[in-house]
Every structure is written in structure tokens, then in C-alpha cells.
């Protein structure tokens, strides 16, 4: 296994998300694209913290764990924040999609022509 494999997989996932945003015409699929790209970035953030054989950064009373043997805890805290932000964005986009469906009766973005020209 190549050590860079997880990173490459992350990038592939991100590219799938971007592809969905750019190429799909259905609003729901576009939202899914945003969500996939977001998860790819979150996964990448967690992977940055990974250390082979590392363990979680909690001190224990029964055994001695040196700080060098711990994974980096900061990205774990950051990824939670990032997930919460992603939740808010997704909820907002879905609410918009429902409203748009109510106005146009379709999820097809090419039929929404109010702003063209």
C-alpha cells in the first residue's frame, strides 16, 4: 500500500463532488455533490492528523502515554466545527431546493430561466 493512497482517494472523492456540481442538472444531485466534496475535505482534515500507531490524546491514570505517541488532536476538534458548518449549509440548500420545487414544479436547473440573459 502506498502511503499516499488515502490522500489520492480523498482527492478522487473531491473531484466526484465537483463533477456532480458542474455536470448535473438536478438540484438534489448538485446538493449531493456539495456534500460529497465537503466530506472529502473533512476526511482529508482527519487524515492530516493521522500518525501510524498513534492513539487518542487523552492522558490515562493507569498507563504512561507520551505526547509523541499521540495523534494530533487539533484537527479532530476542527473537523467537528467543519461538520457543523456543513450541516447548516446542507440544511439551507435543501430548504431552498424545496422552495424552488414549489415555484417551478421541477428539480431540473435548466428549466429555471428567471436569471438568464
Amino acid at each position: 500500500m502506498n502511503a499516499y493512497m488515502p490522500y489520492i482517494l480523498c482527492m478522487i472523492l473531491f473531484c466526484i463532488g465537483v463533477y456532480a456540481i458542474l455536470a448535473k442538472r438536478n438540484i438534489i444531485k448538485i446538493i449531493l455533490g456539495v456534500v460529497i466534496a465537503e466530506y472529502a475535505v473533512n476526511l482529508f482534515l482527519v487524515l492530516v492528523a493521522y500518525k501510524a500507531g498513534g492513539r487518542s490524546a487523552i492522558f490515562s491514570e493507569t498507563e504512561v502515554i507520551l505526547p509523541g505517541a499521540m495523534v494530533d488532536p487539533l484537527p479532530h476538534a476542527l473537523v467537528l466545527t467543519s461538520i457543523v458548518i456543513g450541516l447548516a449549509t446542507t440544511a439551507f440548500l435543501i430548504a431552498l431546493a424545496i422552495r424552488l420545487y414549489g415555484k417551478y414544479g421541477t428539480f431540473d436547473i435548466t428549466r429555471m430561466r428567471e436569471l438568464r440573459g
Partner: protein
Amino acid sequence: MSKEHDRGMSIIVKTVTRLTVGLILLYGIYIILHGHLTPGGGFAGGVIVALSFINLDLAFGGSISAKIFSKGSTAVVEALGAVMFLSLALIGMKYGGFFDNFLHPDGNAGQLVSAGIIPLENIAISLKVSAGLFGIFLTLIVLQKFESEKK
């Protein structure tokens, strides 16, 4: 068949939900209150609490949980949680700084009542998150009904 079974999912789902929904709620509260000792905390616990309400709605179909916890009250609880969180942070300014931990900062590791204002802030966050998430769910349901009725 009683009137209750006209809507929602099958009787198996309903029975299981009836048995588990209280446990889910309790588990959420446990996660919130133990947030400063074990993994978890206000956000994770708040999501679990909100899920227990959403679970009811999904299984029984319609507005069972909206009767317990209406959309207006979710908004109030959510704002209350936010105000509580912010005012805890602002009270800290009197003692040394924004978000200063002014209640006995050196507690004992592993004790439930130890971490100063962190458990209180967990509670505030959980109020905000659970009410907010459930509010989003109710809003989406209402929106969807509203939009489909217009046709």
C-alpha cells in the same frame, strides 16, 4: 385497527420506536452531561436528543412530536440556548477574559462536577443544537406540505 394505525410505518416499527425512544432521549442527555469527561458533548448529545423526537415523527407519521415540542417553542429554546452560551462567555469577562472558566478551574479528573463552566456550556449548546435541528426538521416538513398543497 385503531385510528392511530392509519398513518406512519408498520406496527413493528411503531412498537420498537415506542420502546426505544425514551432510551435514545436518555442516552442523549447522558452524552450531554458527561461531555466534559468522555467523548461527546453538547453537539453530539443535542443531535441525539433531536433524533429521538424526529424518530417519533418518522415512525408515527405526521405531527406527534410537534404537539410535544412545537415549532414556536423550538425557536425560543434555541435562542435561549444561544443567549445562555453567550452570557456564560460574557460573565467570564468579569473574572479575567472572554470564555474564562470562572468556576473552580482546577477540578478533579473523572468527577462529574469538576470542569467549571464547561458542563454548563455543554448544556447550552445542547439546547441550541437539539432545538435547532428539530426546528430544521419541522420547517422542512412544513415547507414540503405547504408546497405540495399549493398545486
